[in-house]
């Protein structure tokens, strides 16, 4: 009798993943966010969680769980090593985690290319903007600036820091980077009181201040979006191929700015179902309308494409990585 029950249970277990791929009915899918509530990663995940159920077979409940710490390395380690590959756990974390792996940060216990990639929900366009009352109207003028232009930053590892750092060290723009501001909003205030001359950051966060005429956009990184495609790209000013490669490496994760993954070895049919669900959710008119209101622009990049971009990041020659690590540290 007992043995038979066991057998039934075993069959049930073995069959479970197959059944699941067709339907998540009655299940709860958890999206683990590597940050505390309040930031962009969290807001995006919560918006997706509200609209995903409609598009996943079986209309499961989708909830968000915050697992903060170590710039989301803790969350990534958890999804990679602890979470079950059954489609019920999705992770979203710091886009710079590939950089952490690349530069050999202690505590990294994942291989970014081996996650089951659902894809990226958005890209991020980093720009450098300087105070509108400065005499420099474009990058060429800024480059010829005699006086040092002071750029505020939050700290190494953030795009507020790394993007201007490469312009300074590799292109030779006369910049001085002052770091330690508690948030990009804090730097914005320093710009308003003329403590610093400008800041780098995402176009989304700078746009209201550009529209108000406080700052002027000068140069952008590779990743782009409508409104800034005419800005020059930092890589076009690189003095040599090596510098260009370093800049490209820094900006690569920005193409996969809102990564969504599942644990490695998640069955292919589940991955396929999730990719389709994400693609449909991000196109969902209700979500688009909501995103427009809250200024969160989403754009789906399929998992295989994201995986390819990051595999390229991981395949860089050792000496280039070593040089890259001289400039860029993982953080924030």
């Amino acid at each position, binding site marked *: 009798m007992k043995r038979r029950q066991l057998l039934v249970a075993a069959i049930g277990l073995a069959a479970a993943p197959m059944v699941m791929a067709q339907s998540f009915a009655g299940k709860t899918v958890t999206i683990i966010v590597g940050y505390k509530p309040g930031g962009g990663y969290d807001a995006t995940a919560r918006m997706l969680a509200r609209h995903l159920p409609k598009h996943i077979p079986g209309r499961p409940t989708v909830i968000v769980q915050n697992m903060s710490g*170590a*710039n989301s390395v803790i969350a990534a380690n958890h999804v990679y090593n602890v979470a079950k590959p059954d489609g019920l756990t999705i992770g979203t974390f710091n886009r710079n985690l590939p950089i952490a792996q690349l530069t050999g940060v202690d505590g990294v216990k994942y291989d970014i290319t081996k996650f089951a990639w659902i894809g990226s929900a958005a890209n991020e366009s980093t720009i450098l903007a300087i105070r509108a009352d400065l005499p420099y109207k474009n990058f060429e003028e800024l480059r010829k600036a005699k006086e040092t232009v002071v750029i505020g930053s939050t700290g190494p590892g953030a795009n507020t820091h790394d993007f201007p750092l490469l312009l300074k060290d590799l292109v030779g723009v006369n910049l001085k980077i002052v770091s330690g501001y508690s948030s990009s909003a804090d730097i914005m205030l320093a710009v308003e009181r003329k403590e610093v001359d400008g800041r780098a950051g995402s176009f989304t966060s700078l746009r209201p201040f550009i529209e108000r005429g406080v700052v002027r956009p000068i140069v952008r990184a590779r990743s782009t979006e409508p409104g800034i495609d005419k800005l020059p790209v930092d890589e076009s000013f690189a003095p040599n191929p090596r510098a260009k490669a370093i800049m490209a490496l820094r900006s690569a994760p920005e193409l996969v700015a809102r990564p969504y993954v599942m644990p490695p070895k998640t069955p292919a049919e589940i991955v396929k179902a999730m990719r389709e669900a994400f693609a449909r959710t991000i196109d969902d008119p209700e979500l688009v309308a909501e995103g427009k209101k809250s200024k969160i622009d989403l754009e789906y990049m399929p998992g295989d494409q994201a995986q390819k971009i990051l595999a390229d990041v991981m395949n860089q020659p050792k000496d280039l990585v070593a040089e890259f690590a001289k400039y860029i540290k993982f953080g924030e």
Partner: protein
Amino acid sequence: MLEALWEGLLLVLQWKAFGFMLLGIGLGFWVGLLPGLGGATTLALMLPFIYTMQPVEAFAFLLGMHAVVATTGDITSVLFGLPGEATSAATVVDGYAMTKKGEAGRALGAALASSLVGAIVGAVALAAAIPVVRPLVLTFGSPELFMLAIVGLAFIASLSGEGARGMVRGFIAAGLGLLLATVGQDPQAGVARFTFDTLYLWQGLDLVPVLVGIFAIPEIIDLFVRGNSIAGNAPPGKVAKGAWEGVKDTYRHFWLTIRCSLIGTFIGIMPGLGGSVAQWMAYGHAAQSAKTPEERKQFGQGDVRGVLGPGAANNSKEGGSLIPTVAFGVPGSTSMAILLGGFLLLGLVPGPDMLTKHVAVTYSMVWTIVIANVITVAVCFLFLDRLASITEVKGHRLIPVILVLVFIGSYTSNSHYADLLVTLVFGGVGYLMVRAGWARAPFVLGLVLGKIAENYLYISTARYEAAWLARPVVMVLIAVAIAVVVYPFFQTRWRKRHG
């Protein structure tokens, strides 16, 4: 301006907005009471619900909730010595000491009444500051913010124990606090400091587990060892009354309450200083109001002024921190950052427009803060005395409940088991400090101000080199810091000569 003020009030009093505010108050009440579940987290969770609301309704809901969290957070601090929020830890020091003396009702009355005064002062300041807010905020650059942190640290002098020995201990404790504030990856070179190769410490120590440990654990041990109730050593019959006495205390020390409210508002206006700084500065100021060494000794032993100060500052800072959010679109805290998301969602662009075109909406926020606090305090008073009688429940019945709150409270900060470890370690530290008679306030002050002081000092020097020392506001603040440090010495000497 008066017209806009009136219009703002009418907006809040519309039945729908008012209803949403009541809902927000109900939620905020519990969030504040329960340790760990912070105001910011709740705001993030509630944000989706405002999609279909009008701006005024949405802010009545969100702000009503947020304004109340700080008020009810003090209740847990006073009753159990367990900080309900990171921002209500300073109330523990004297509030819980009063509770142990059997004055829980009085302490709660004082905390709530001063919260109300603080909320009103903060809101009035917000309303009055609207025309001058931009120049005011822009005057305070990184050098000035650094000096504000130094002024805060100068309060160590009045928060330490008595005499040279107490002072030395105070400075050692504060030094330890400053040192612990450096744990984590530094924002200048990106170096990991004191992390012992653990991922958990990478972003530094979280305030909540540390505060919960250092304040609540020693008291739980004490309660366990004594074997009776929290107010077990107090004369019987005293506990379940006195809330009204606390209200009277607020008026006895009216100007102190007002001054502490203004300190709170001011710290709130300064973006980048953070919510937990205001109450400690106010506590330091309250401790300075002691006129004799004997009086000063009472601080930490249950002086009602030690409750009034932080209680007032805690609520007045809310009005203050709205200012940079509304006027610049630059949030002063995590909660405000989430609120800013709410603004965008509703199609309002924070910035100069909020002070001119949408000024009625801005004033409606001011009113929400005031009305939410009036309602909360009124409701609380209905059962305050009954709440105070919890402190007569036998320890062995209460300890399990408090312990659960302690560990849930600390675990919710990162949902990591190390949160519990931190609580236990700092519980041990706190216990040793209490046993050896070291004041805990200087330690916390160091921890709270350490990062701010370090970063703004770095920025000031990197940006201006030594020239920042010559800025006029910096020089004024240097004088204030010196005055704060030498004040206790002069006071004692003056007493001796004239007493």
